[in-house]
């Protein structure tokens, strides 16, 4: 799985951080998403999928790698 994020679309809701804190963080200055790793190990992928599903800004894209 390969993750790409769209910081322009992101609205800083932090939903991805709640769903998958190992993979997503927020910038302190404006809450915008920061990717901690872009190819998560299989054990993290279910949470990453959930993060992309609940992101209100549709800012997380997952592609098979």
């Amino acid at each position, binding site marked *: 799985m390969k993750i790409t994020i769209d910081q322009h679309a992101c*609205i800083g809701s932090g939903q991805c951080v*709640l769903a998958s804190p190992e993979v997503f963080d*927020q910038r302190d200055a404006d*809450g915008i998403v920061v990717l901690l790793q872009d190819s998560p190990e299989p054990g993290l992928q279910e949470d990453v999928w959930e993060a992309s599903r609940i992101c209100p800004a*549709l800012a997380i894209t997952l592609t098979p790698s």
Partner: protein
Amino acid sequence: MADALPEMPTFPMARATGCPFDPSPELGRRLEEAPVSRVRLWDGSTPWMVTRHADVRALLADPRVSVDVTQPGFPHTNAVSKARDAHMKTLMQMDAPEHTAQRRLLTSDFTIKRMEALRPRIQRIVDDLIDEMLAGPNPVDLVEAFALPVPSLVICELLGSPYTARDLFHRVSRTLVMDEPDPEQAMAASQELNAYLEELVDKKNAEPSDDVFSRLAVEQYRTGAMTRREIATVGQLLLVAGHDTTANMIALGTTALLAHPDQLSAVRDGGDPALVTNAAEELLRYLSITHTEARRVAREDLEIGGRLIRKGDGIIAVKSIANRDPSAFPDPETLDVRREARHHVAFGFGAHQCLGQPLARVELQVVYSTLYRRIPTLALAVPLEQLTFKENAVFYGVRELPVTW
């Protein structure tokens, strides 16, 4: 279309008698039979109503829909909100790119990190209020004694306002979200709050501390980027959006749990923080208290759920019934605190999803994990059938919740 009009249901639609937690049965019928269809509003206008979970998400994330309340087709809630919208423009009435820029001024105050830093202070507020309640009369109205003071005090914390302002916040917020607000009273309340908040900007500018208003005073007011009035409007938005909403989720959530004792005992006795987190999401889904739903106007022609919506048409995304859509939530009529529910749309979806949701989540998690544990014998002091509910208010809830222990 004229001959179809008598068939057109009016919106909002009444709940069934004796089912205070369930959306109108008419909404359920629409979800099944006509998921995107026209409804008639108070002013005779006939916007579209969108009911399916997938369609509500798609609509609210679509840049071709607008929250611009000055557009002729915008579906207003009532005459008072229409009049207020004409003179007070907040984040909720702005489209991109104005909305994006304004919202980003505030997102740093609601990051998950900042909310976690607030959690101990919220826990303290909740514990102190429970201490006060246990030392006071029994039975008591949980709405007045607990559900309303929690968000009043948390908003004081957030804005950096002295706790003495809690009565002002409480009073103003009640006036602004009443069932049938009196326009003059609402205007007076709004002005009184603005005057207080503008003074608070000056105080924070002189003596900044670690709170939203200090940061806005230093970063925006001092630099000339925002006026005192604009910062006061932000404060008013945070209050109106964060006060009655949270209070209703506390009191109505408690009512729902008391009516479902097996669910209450799971929350109370589980001892599992993950279960309380789940329970908060499930109660948000199940109760979906934003009665006004999410309102938009089409900026271009667009297709939703196979129906063509024309440029200029009003649209109401009915989050409460989308949260009961069986294709998104199996067995949707059942309150199940163990279910995975966080894809609910109670906070909306898209760029306008609730700014304060991380704060609301922490408040609800602290309340639900503390109130029933500290008062394990908490019970209704009157039969459930005697409770009355805010049928026509902006935010749905229970008017009074007499409890005993």
